[in-house]
């Protein structure tokens, strides 16, 4: 069984997951840029039963999504500010901040199970890998209709604005 652990910078909060991610989202939206401070969030999603909090009690910030209007909760460490995972109003999966795993490369973030989303707000200087599903915004419409992805056969550099 998978047993991959992660935690915050100061070590107060620790977690483990016990399965491969159901899906890996690499999200370039403005919320994820601000939440990470970086260009995108690497957000592997796990079934709730495969995620285990091992130590500490996270602080939660509830945020209403500008896009969907639904609530999402950010769970972070009050001592060092590290954000560890997201929970969502509209589904029960856990979205982990991928860089907080002790071995962040343990899951495949560049293969068929990965999708880059909200590329309409992606930053110049970022290169999207070949072979992953790409979406300008969400992979489904607000009515729940799947959007066809585009897939690049070579690394795809985001052009300057």
């Amino acid at each position: 069984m998978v047993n991959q652990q992660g935690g915050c910078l100061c070590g107060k909060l620790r977690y483990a997951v016990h399965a491969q991610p159901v899906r890996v989202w690499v999200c370039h939206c403005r919320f994820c840029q601000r939440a990470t401070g970086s260009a995108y969030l690497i957000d592997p999603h796990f079934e709730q039963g495969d995620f285990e909090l091992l130590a500490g009690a996270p602080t939660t910030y509830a945020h209403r999504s500008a896009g969907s209007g639904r609530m999402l909760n950010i769970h972070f460490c009050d001592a060092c500010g590290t954000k560890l995972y997201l929970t969502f109003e509209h589904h029960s999966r856990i979205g982990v901040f991928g860089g907080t795993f002790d071995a962040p490369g343990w899951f495949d973030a560049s293969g068929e199970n990965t999708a880059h989303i909200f590329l309409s707000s992606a930053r110049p200087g970022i290169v999207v890998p070949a072979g992953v599903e790409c979406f300008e915004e969400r992979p489904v419409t607000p009515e729940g209709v799947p959007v066809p992805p585009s897939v690049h056969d070579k690394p795809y550099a985001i052009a300057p604005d």
Partner: protein
Amino acid sequence: MRAYNVGCLCGNLRYKATAPPLRVNYCHCRFCQRITGSSHLVEPVFEKADFGRTSGSASVYKHRSAGSGKLIDIHFCATCGTKLFMTFERFPEVVGVFGGTFDDAAWAEGTQGVTRHLFLREAQPGTVIPAGVPCFEQHAITNDGEPLDPKVYSEPHVVGTGPPAP
């Protein structure tokens, strides 16, 4: 004068810079992976004198760098956890801002010539480095301040190895 406004998700904490960044670091080290939750930090570096508070009061977490042994202060919002900037014992004249927290993504315009990628030896597998930017396996300088030679890729470069499993 152009202002570079940054803020946290909940809006409590607001800062701004009043001059363009000196340089922009894309840092792939394990520390930057953990603090962002992503594969790297996008870090525009400003003169401390050009950066100041607009509103709110930041919490500070003091972290000792595993590489240099020097202290790094991470300034973040206690309400929403968003990190806005870092100050450094090692580099007291500058502020390293979390690039994703700018209101206007156009902060990065004109910074291509001062951009570099750091700590490629720790980058997550599958990370793609753009062509034409200086890349360093570790920092751009040694702990004694000696500059290191960059490598520049002519095509996008896919990183094949990451940090060893613990």
